[in-house]
């Protein structure tokens, strides 16, 4: 079962992700900001991480950098879920080590298709 760690400070968004991904047969772990995301990462052992950008304590960029810093996650796919669609923002996410991005509001099918493309 594909395991996803979804990180978003909005509980609505977390619930939506959980619903969409669970329905697609994935196993979802949730965290509500970057700090918690890094904390639960070893236990969650996800195949892919989805993260929001704007979050308290540690934002999405910080989270991605934190994940990439650890050699065992150097190639873990990380999708950024963002309402922003600016090139500068995407470049920042890429620089931090993001694998790709999904623009909110996301389409569940599209999200699942993208995830399936990124994990075996």
């Amino acid at each position: 079962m594909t395991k996803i760690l979804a990180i978003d400070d909005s509980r609505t968004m977390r619930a939506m992700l959980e619903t969409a991904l669970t329905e697609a047969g994935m196993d979802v772990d949730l965290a509500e900001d970057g700090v918690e995301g890094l904390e639960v990462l070893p236990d969650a052992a996800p195949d892919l991480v989805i993260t929001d950008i704007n979050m308290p304590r540690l934002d999405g960029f910080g989270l991605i950098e934190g994940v990439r810093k650890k050699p065992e996650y150097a190639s873990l796919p990380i999708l950024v879920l963002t309402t922003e669609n600016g090139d500068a923002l995407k470049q920042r996410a890429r620089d931090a080590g993001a694998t790709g991005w999904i623009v909110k509001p996301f389409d569940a099918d599209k999200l699942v298709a993208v995830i399936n493309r990124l994990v075996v």
Partner: protein
Amino acid sequence: MSDLRDMFFEECDDLMEVLSTGLDDLQNGNGDAETINAMFRSVHSIKGGGGAFGLDRLINFAHAFENVLEDLRSEKIEADPALIALMFSSFDHLNDLVDAARDDNDIAEDAGASILADLKQVSPPENGGADEVEVDSADFMPLTLDIGGDNDFGPLPDFDLPPSLDLEADPAPPMADPLPTGDGINAFSIEFSADPGLYSRGHDPALLFRALADLGDVTVSADTGNVLALAEAGDALSALSWTLQLIPNDGVEEDDIREVFEFVESQCVLEISTTVVEKAADTDLPELALPTLADEAPAPDEADTAVDATAQTAPQPAAKPAIKVVEAKPATGKKSEPRNSTIRVDLDRVDRLINLVGELVISEAMLRQSMNELPVSANSSVSEAIGQLKTLSGVLQESVMAIRAQPVRGLFQRMSRIVRESSRTAGKDARMLMIGDSTEVDKTVTERLVEPLTHMIRNSVDHGLETAEDRIKAGKPAQGTIKLEAAHRSGRVVISLSDDGAGINRVKVRKIAESKGLVRPEDDLTDSDIDNLLFRPGFSTADSISELSGRGVGLDVVRSEIQALGGRINLQSEPGKGTSMTISLPLTLAVMEGMLVTIEGESLVVPTVALRETLQPGQANVHEFCEGDRGLSMGGEILPIVDLGEALGFRRQLSNLDNQALLLIEGESGRRSALAVDNIIEQREVVIKGLEQNYQSIPGIAAATILGNGKIALIVDTDQMIPAAGKSQLSLLKGQEHAEVA
């Protein structure tokens, strides 16, 4: 979906609260970078959630608001008073939009238009206004041959070519698997080489190729020409480049191919061209199986010849391969719990728990009482255990009550808006000061305080505060202050609302009261008596009905609403200095403070809220009137005496009150009467049990409770025990059968 929608709006409430707190902090000069960050995130999350539910108007407004906060965050603009005022209006409008969306209401087309324009003027939208929020779920950047700014190695050509140009630097190698001749069919030729950045972002070319295989028949060949040179340079990862040929399935367009490379476009060199190939009888790669991917990737320097991509995949930068074979791992049993610090629980469940704990406390009291009747020593282990049980059940009750408790912050913030709105309407300048907004009160109480407080605030702004000119004349700051304060005091919550206005004009109040027949000109009234006339039904001080508070309801409605919550309201005023109203409320609606009394052996509870005094009647101050009515003379006033036993139908009227105790009570209207009872037992907290659900409504009885000995005690509805002026007490429960108590 509707659950999610509800959840979104609930979350909106929290987010609006964060926003409101932030605004207050900014206004009071307590704001810092994190304040603005938190505000930004709130608006951002509202926008994000709004997008999920297609709330376009909300999204657009939130977006403009967010832009301003973004500029504030990046210190492009400063939070001067004008901007803070704009943000307050924006907050109010955003609130309206959220409310309208929640209730599916339409909101006037032009509502908030000027605020939106102001926001856009402060922080013009990027792209000169073309930046409506995108609602596409997928994201396609124009594809350019961008090898990326992080290209820190030499051998790859440093260029940025439009896709139509050939990549001279890396000419396509011959197909590894020449196709047999046959009919020509259209195919795509895809050239691809990766930056190191591609791997370090969790991508794997093999997965891209697998995705391509979904679009048609793919043939892959790898060119390892650069491997050796790059390996010497210590960066062999990008040494491979690939040429792919895709014979597309029906309907597959170039865009579909580009979509596969969507995320890697800036970390690779990609060239897609169309070509005509001879129809293949069968390709080697009907499907791109990836059997070797789970194995350790070969070291780069082994890849010294052109290889088929199925046999040779890109080496991984980390020891752990990025791609895992799908493992049939046993389910780990449980999903790891979301580490939330809060959970959402249905109110019904909480109430049920509260009820059960109430029962438990009663059972415990019963147990203790029966213990007292047994020959058990106070030092015995049983007594000790029971003592412990008592402590525990007390703590349990307190903890359960705390579940329903909520800080009054949300309520106060709503009121802050009322201050803004009503002062705007009244043409007065007012600010609101909140003190003790973290004080916790039962959720139902906070909800039911909205209306009375709203009314009180409108009243304060309308009648309490002076105009700016008058204030300056009186030597006060032009801006009036409305102070809302909450605190816990001796087991109750005290909420006070004070203004620094002109205070109550007692001469005027008295004149109005006289003209309305509420008092007589010869009545001797203290200042406090006059102030409290404001709470009398039918009183309105406004000469003309103003837009604000003159809505046909006076402070008497406020008072009865507060009393319905088991609360009291008091008013104090000092001419020239201002007025303050103090509401005192029980911490919860489930427990009430009452005086336990007995009549004919039956236990009854009189709510202490209404209780003013207890006394023993003397012959001298009891007066007999016609029809058996009796009165108690107190301070020159005659109060009706109500024989509670008779009023409730427990007995015939007593001929003699000598052995009775009198409870002086005051009702909502401010009228008082004296209740005659056999004995006063004690003052205690009782758990309120509704009678309507369990039995039926009984005139004169508000509810019931269960006493420690397991007996039921009825709670007296004191308001029904105060005869209207000029009415005999027999008409108290007129037209209604007297209660029969078994």
